[in-house]
């Protein structure tokens, strides 16, 4: 076991982890933050996407110890005060979620897509770059709409 320290949603956190502990397990088990989900075991579904030092990353694909001193943001860290992040608000406004399980990862990926591609990101780019996030409920139609709308308001 070793101690890992990082910043999570702006707060300093630390915990004892094994070398093999994944970031997602550190977040969910050690810190009890359950907004980040696990939907597969092959790094395909994207339900666990968080931001590490500003970049979207599947938290099932990185070790907790590799995030020593990193700045990590989860879906719980997006809303400031009572104000939803523009992307969160867009998912609600455009009915971009049904069961909600893929939603945290979708929102984290969507924000990253907009950061890298700008407010006018095209539908094709959104669809292509969401290839690492699987949703079984919505057929993606309203997710794409939400990402476009969220982009405009970011």
């Amino acid at each position, binding site marked *: 076991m070793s101690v890992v320290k990082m910043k999570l949603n702006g707060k300093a956190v630390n915990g004892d982890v*094994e070398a093999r502990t994944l970031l997602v397990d550190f977040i969910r088990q050690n810190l*009890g*933050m*359950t*907004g*980040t*989900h*696990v*939907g*597969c*075991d*092959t790094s*395909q*579904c994207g*339900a666990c996407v968080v931001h590490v030092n500003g970049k979207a990353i599947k938290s099932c694909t990185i070790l907790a110890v590799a995030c020593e001193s990193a700045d990590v943001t*989860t*879906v*719980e860290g*997006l*809303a400031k005060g009572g104000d*939803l992040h523009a992307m*969160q608000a867009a*998912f*609600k*406004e455009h*009915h971009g*979620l*049904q*069961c*909600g*399980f*893929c*939603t*945290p990862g979708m*929102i984290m990926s969507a924000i990253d897509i907009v950061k890298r591609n700008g407010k006018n990101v095209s*539908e*094709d780019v*959104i*669809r*292509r770059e*969401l*290839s690492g*996030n*699987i*949703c*079984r*409920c*919505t*057929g*993606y*139609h*309203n*997710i*794409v*709409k939400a990402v476009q709308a969220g982009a405009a308001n970011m």
Partner: protein
Amino acid sequence: MADTKTGIGASVRRKEDLRFITGKGNYTDDINLKDQTVGYFLRSPHAHAKIKSINTAKARKMDGVVGIFTGEDVAKDKLGGLICGWMIHSKDGSPMKAGPHPVLALDKVRFVGDQVALVVAETKEQARAAAQAIVVSYDVLPHVVDVAKAMKSKANVHDVAPDNRVFNWSLGNEADTNAAFAKAAHVTSMDIVNNRLIPNAMEPRAAIGSYDTGTESYTLYTTSQNPHVARLVISAFHGLAPEHKLRVIAPDVGGGFGSKIFIYGEEVACVWASKFIGGRPIKWTGERSESFLCDAHGRDHVTKAELAMDANGKITGMRVHTKAAMGAYLSTFSAAVPTYLYGTLLSGQYNIPNIYVEVDAIYTNTAPVDAYRGAGRPEATYVVERLVETAARELKMDPAEFRRKNFVTSFPHQTPVIMMYDAGDYGAALDKALDMSDYKNFASRKAESAKNGKLRGVGFSAYIEACGIAPSAAVGSLGAGVGLWESAEVRVNPIGTVEILTGSHSHGQGHETTFAQLVSERLGVDINNVLIVHGDTDKVQMGMGTYGSRSGAVGMTAISKALDKIEAKAKKIAAAVMESSVNDVEFKDGTFTIKGTDKKMGFGEVALASYLGHKFNTSEIELGLKESAFHDPSNFVFPAGVHICEVEVDVDTGLTKIASYTAVDDFGNLINPMIVEGQVQGGVAQGIGQALLEGAVYDEDSGQLLTGSFMDYNMPRAANMPHIENFQLGFTCTPCPSNPLGMKGCGEAGAIAAPPAVINAITHALGVRDIAMPATPLTVWTAMQSMKIAAE
């Protein structure tokens, strides 16, 4: 009318969204109980084998191990096996041949993934390590995974069914149908395969079972679409504990699509085993690999289907023989799926005087097959719409006009396969879909595609389904072990806020919003003052859950009936308080008024008065404002519509793109159009997935599931779906006459309608008679190559 912004027909944004978009959802794996342990299942690596011995001695001594349980422990404790809740009889009158389905495998394993032992430890890593140290000695037996071959296989999945056939069921009049075929001017005959699908709700199944040694009662948190049915089955059939000693909670559930209806061995094992480790909770969270291996799969039919027509192109008969895979065990509702949810829908939207269907349900050494979004109705629609489209092409008739010529046009309409269609206007949906899809200019789009090296095709699907499941007496007479009603309780609080307790369960459908809209409409209460309570057997007395697109037509009708009682009682109280006759009380927009006077009371004032009891005689009018109701539907409801798909096939690669998709659906009255559209979009995506991408493949030699992860099983992704502007939705409306809200169901329509629309479009583009699902680039490319060879 209530405030139209939150009442019936308004696209109200969902109340449940806030917790999901902020990471505050409460799914089963998010819950952690005091002293919780972790459960891990050791699973069979073989498709079929005798268990000679299980040696757990070494594993039991490993770090952190709390307990190890096998099928023998289950048998010793006399815990009952898993059941199939629907008894089907073969056409010779014999009951279906149901083999044993123990909670943990006993003596034999019957598919790769069958659970052999439950290992309980302090951590998941410890449980997994101990599971790997268990030595199971197997005697491998012959297996069969292909439903088409199983009846003649050496493999015998269950002793009770020597030819692996569970039942041979039939529906319709065979002699009359044969006579229609003898007289037919044209017969279209097809071999049709409906590919096996893996549901893959994004939240893997999970359970936390615990036993309270003080109260001698159990609690089970589980990813269920119907927690009350789970409690009923675990109490009455497994015999774990009487219902008042077993609480089942299905908190936020991350999608179901049928796969979370069923009662599985894992949750039963966890809640049962807790008692043997001093009541410590046991949490099992399925890995995705386990979802692939062990969640009940869908479809897997092999069918021979024929359509008879007279010289005028009128359909005179249909004959269908289907082999339906059941997998290794009969899952909870499995027997109903290829029978009463399939054969009964073979008339489609058409006037077909003679139908005969025979179904062989067959055991295979695979995961069980049960209801998956649509459940039987997608399989029926695929048969009907592939046959009809092909017949039209053979008769050189426009497929739209061939359908129109054969549509049912007067209602009620009794089909030869049980169903009585109550209302519909199929021509109206067809007209609207033709118009929205700009069908008349298809030729010019095809020419445009050809310039870019693409083959363009158009395909139709005029589907009907029966949902709002279902009249209890009717399903009882057909073999159901339960009634399929729904319950509701309306509790009005003294300050006028409202709590609705429902037996329906929401796992993405948005009940917390749509059910609140009904209350807002009826009582004039703001939807933010309405709480929808579901998913906990300690809170809601009884219910049948959510599947078969039933929560609107059946669940909301139960709420509506309870609201009728609330309104009637509130009127009595309002009349008493305002010293008037109840006959003079009017209730509108949340206000009670007395006819011909300026007296009025708000709904909240009446609610308060009902609990104060100061101003009415409490010996005449009972205190409080709380009512409940059960609703048993008098008929199925019959959503129907026309979907038109255009595809572009790349000649070089065989890649099929959905160029456009138009869905016109008749769901009767809509409560929340935004949510309804979302259901259609999601359903169509699953249908497109079945047609183009998804297919479960078992290796014939080893019996292993080859498509066991998201890297092998092709789930629809955002780029597989049509562009926003190319996916159009439209609605027609014939209100359902059998419920007061005039609602039909919308949850399954897309998954039912889409596969034949897509495949009809691809076969049209290629000019071939058939192409297998999933129509992958390889499949399509191969078909194109063989055509070229044939042409040379």
